[in-house]
């Protein structure tokens, strides 16, 4: 890790080297605290255990308190603005469903792969393939109908966006309280520690990179590079990849790409944690393997249609005042309710 950091600093850029460290911190926090978005949602829906989701709400609130004022102050910083539309609704629903079967969202797949969990190691390349294919088909999905991205900071100002975000998060907490009942334990030190550390690191990512934390784009880029090199696919003929920004990222090393470098950092951070607490994962039958891998592919595909996963759309979208994050959340949770049943049916 130290050698790679030095290589990045000397041969790529200091910024990328520092972002690699931020990624290591994210991976260590995710794996060390077992901060799984998927698990938290499942515990809430199945066991009425709100501790994981409370941790996620704290993360969203802290990240929003930091990010929204920063975006209002520094015009260089970009929010995670995805367009609301058919693509987002379907993509978020399918993502929420498949992440329960694959037992990990975008960041969850990364950190569990870093921990050495066999299914997530197998899912990672299929997730990348799905993410690439989703980006290739994105223009067709957008043609089904969409609105322009809505930035709450632009619409109602920094104070209005921050208050609206915190009020909506508080309403979610009230709704969860009504669902689980009054006798439940709300807070767990592990989840809260993970939430605080991840909020700090997500803010650092925004300050340093100028854009919020994301996971999915990097994977699509990696597979796009392989597809281009194989000669079977021409990015110049594709609506998404022929755009100037994406085309230049295809030509330059992935070590210059922001999400790629934080993704590698997350893997490295999880590997560091894995050395202390090995995780063999649960043995799976061939049928479970096939279903899990198919879910991983669909998860990658749908995450592009949804303009992000739990990190890029939910955390980064909501914390930077993007409307699409607030559409993503209920749609993905609706998908999760079905995904949990399918997960039980296939005996995961």
């Amino acid at each position, binding site marked *: 890790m130290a050698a790679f950091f030095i290589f990045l600093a000397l*041969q*790529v*850029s200091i*910024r990328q080297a*520092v972002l690699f460290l931020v990624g290591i911190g994210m991976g260590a926090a995710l794996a060390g605290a077992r901060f799984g978005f998927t698990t938290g949602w499942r515990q809430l829906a199945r066991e009425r255990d709100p501790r994981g989701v409370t941790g996620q709400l704290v993360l969203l609130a802290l990240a929003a308190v930091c990010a929204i004022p920063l975006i209002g*102050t*520094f*015009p*260089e*910083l*970009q929010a*995670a603005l*995805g367009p609301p539309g058919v693509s987002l609704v379907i993509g978020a629903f399918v993502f929420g469903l498949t992440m329960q079967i694959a037992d990990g969202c975008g960041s969850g797949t990364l950190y569990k792969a870093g921990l*050495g969990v*066999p299914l997530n*190691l197998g899912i990672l390349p299929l997730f990348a393939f799905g993410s690439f294919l989703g980006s290739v088909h*994105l223009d067709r999905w*957008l043609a089904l109908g*969409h609105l322009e*991205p809505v930035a709450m900071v632009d619409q109602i100002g920094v104070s209005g966006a921050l208050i609206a975000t915190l009020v909506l998060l508080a309403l979610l907490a009230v709704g969860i309280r009504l669902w689980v009942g009054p006798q439940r334990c709300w807070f767990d030190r592990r989840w809260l520690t993970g939430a605080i550390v991840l909020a700090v690191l997500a803010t650092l990512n*925004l*300050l*340093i*990179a*100028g*854009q*919020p934390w*994301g996971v*999915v*784009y*990097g994977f699509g880029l*990696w597979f796009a590079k392989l597809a281009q090199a194989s000669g079977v696919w021409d990015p110049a003929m594709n609506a*998404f990849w022929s*755009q100037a*920004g994406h085309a230049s*990222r295809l*030509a*330059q*090393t*992935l*070590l*210059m*790409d*922001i*999400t790629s470098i934080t993704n*590698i950092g997350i893997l490295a951070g999880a590997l560091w944690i*894995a050395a202390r*607490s*090995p*995780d*063999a994962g649960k043995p799976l039958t061939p049928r479970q393997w096939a279903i899990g891998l198919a879910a991983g592919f669909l998860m990658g595909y749908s*995450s*592009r249609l949804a*303009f*992000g996963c739990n990190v890029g*759309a939910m955390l*980064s*979208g909501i914390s930077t005042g*993007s409307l*699409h994050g607030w559409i993503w959340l209920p749609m993905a949770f609706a998908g999760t309710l079905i995904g949990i049943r399918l997960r039980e049916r296939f005996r995961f």
Partner: protein
Amino acid sequence: MSDPTVKRDQRLRALVFWSVLTVFVAWDWARSDPVDLRNEPPLIAAGSGQAASGGHCSLAR
């Protein structure tokens, strides 16, 4: 969790995974445009006056 077989299998999986990832990154480094070190992005984007140029999953285009 401290089963030696578990640890050995995990080490083997990690070795294979990181080997594949290292080969991929090296292959990409070799085929990509050289990095322009004179045109390095600012260490901190906030306050730099330069708009972020990275890709993000929220991008529709």
